[in-house]
Every structure is written in C-alpha cells, then in structure tokens.
C-alpha cells in the first residue's frame, strides 16, 4: 500500500489560482493596447458587433476586453489549480511573490490607463441633423 501524497490545503490552492487569475485578467484586458488583437467591438448607433482590431466608427471595446479578461482569467485559474494540486505546500516566499506580481500587474495597468487617458484627445462624433441637446 502506498501512502497518499499530502495535498496542498484548499485555501492555498485557491490563493494560487486567484493570484494567477488576477495577473491573467490584467494582461488580457490591456493586451489589445500593446498588440494588434481582434476583440469584439460594439457599435451602439448601429446596434451591431464586429470582431476587429480597430473600429471604423463610434464603437466600444470595453465589453470585448472584459470578455477577453474573463477568458484569460478562466484559463489561468484552471491551469494554476491543476499545478498547485501537484504540490504539498505553498511556501511563504512563493505566496509573497504571487501577491507581489498580482499587485504589480494591477498597479501597472492602472498607471497605464491613467497616463494614456490623461493625455488623450478624444474625437467627437459629428452632430446629427437637427440635433437638440437632451
């Protein structure tokens, strides 16, 4: 009879999975700004979706980037859970590094948005004929 291999406690497995998920979500959420990546764009005026790199009119990529982030998060959580279950313990150093990487990814993304949007000059859409402000 072989002894059952000790398994990492559930709390530690969840911690690893959530930290990996956070990092993956952040990377996937900002990735379209750093690399040409097709994401779902919603055109509110035409009420249609398009899967493209750059929009051709007034469109929103916010929904699409959230979907991309959730896909990245899901993959990372599954992979991290499978890997974490192969180990018996989670060392304090690994735990601290995972937390530090997750916080670094978040802070980087937040600074990126704050910096780029502070300097953005938005292009207004043309006013429709007979436009009366609401």
């Amino acid at each position: 009879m072989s002894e059952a291999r000790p398994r990492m406690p559930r709390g530690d497995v969840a911690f690893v999975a959530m930290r990996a998920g956070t990092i993956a979500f952040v990377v996937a959420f900002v990735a379209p700004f750093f690399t040409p990546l097709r994401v779902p764009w919603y055109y509110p005026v035409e009420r249609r979706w398009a899967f493209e790199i750059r929009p051709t009119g007034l469109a929103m990529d916010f929904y699409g980037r959230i979907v991309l982030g959730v896909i990245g998060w899901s993959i990372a959580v599954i992979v991290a859970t499978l890997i974490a279950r192969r180990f018996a313990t989670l060392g304090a150093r690994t735990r601290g590094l995972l937390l530090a990487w997750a916080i670094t990814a978040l802070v980087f993304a937040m600074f990126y948005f704050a910096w780029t949007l502070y300097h953005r000059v938005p292009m207004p859409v043309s006013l429709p004929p007979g436009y009366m402000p609401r």
Partner: protein
Amino acid sequence: MPDLVFEGGARLLVVLHAAAAIVLVGSTTHQALIAWGYVRGRHKIRLGKIYAATLAITFGFGLLAYPTYRYHVRGLYFDRYEQWASNLFDVKENFAALGLPLVVAVLVLSQVMSPRDDRGLVAGYAACSFFIMAIVWFDVITGLVITMTRGV
C-alpha cells in the same frame, strides 16, 4: 436620432447604478475593515457573497447604461466640450474592470480560508479588500463628478 439599446431606461439605470454604488461604498469599506480585523487577529462574520453581489449589480447597471452614455454624453458632448470628463470616465471604467478579479478572489478566499488558521493568506485577502475599497471610492467620487457635468 439613432435608437440605442436601453436608451429609454438609461436615466433609471444610472439612478440604480448610483444607488447600488452607494451600497457598494459602504460594503467594500466594511469588508476592508473586516480584513484589517483578520490581520490584527480579530475574526468576524464574512460577507464576501453580499459584497460580490453588490458589485455585480452596480457593474451590471453601468454596463447596460453604457451605450447611451457612449453616444449621447461622450460622443456628442464630452468629446467636444468636456474632454477631461470623457477621459476621467474611461479611467473610472477601466479601474472598475480591473477590480473584478479581486472581487472574485475575495469571494473565493472568504469561502475556503480560515482567518484563524490560514494566517499566511490573510495579508493577500486584506490587500485585495483594500484595493477594491480604493477603486470603489475612486469610481463613486469620479462618477458623481462626471454625472454632475452631464448625465444621460
């Protein structure tokens, strides 16, 4: 004028969005205080599920009202006359999205973690809670400022 999705109910959606955000400010602050209690060795009730649900409701109303905002408020007005508000809104929305994995992390950890026994996880749990609280306070304050400038 174009007919946008949920346009007729956009004002109601934004009011509900704001009402849920008020609850969210209180709940995330409470959650952060509970997490601080964990760090200091005080163990109280865990309300992760309620807080996650509140955030989901707030975020959901915001997502539904977003198309109306994007065209009528940002496209026709902010981008032309109040560009700072247009940019601040996008900062706010992106910050809110970045908080989503943290909320799930707090929810999951609150279900599997024992604050008394898993002392090594408490710091990460508290960090998530404080991050969420900071994002929510920032989003609610900027959201009020933006809505005062022009609402849907």
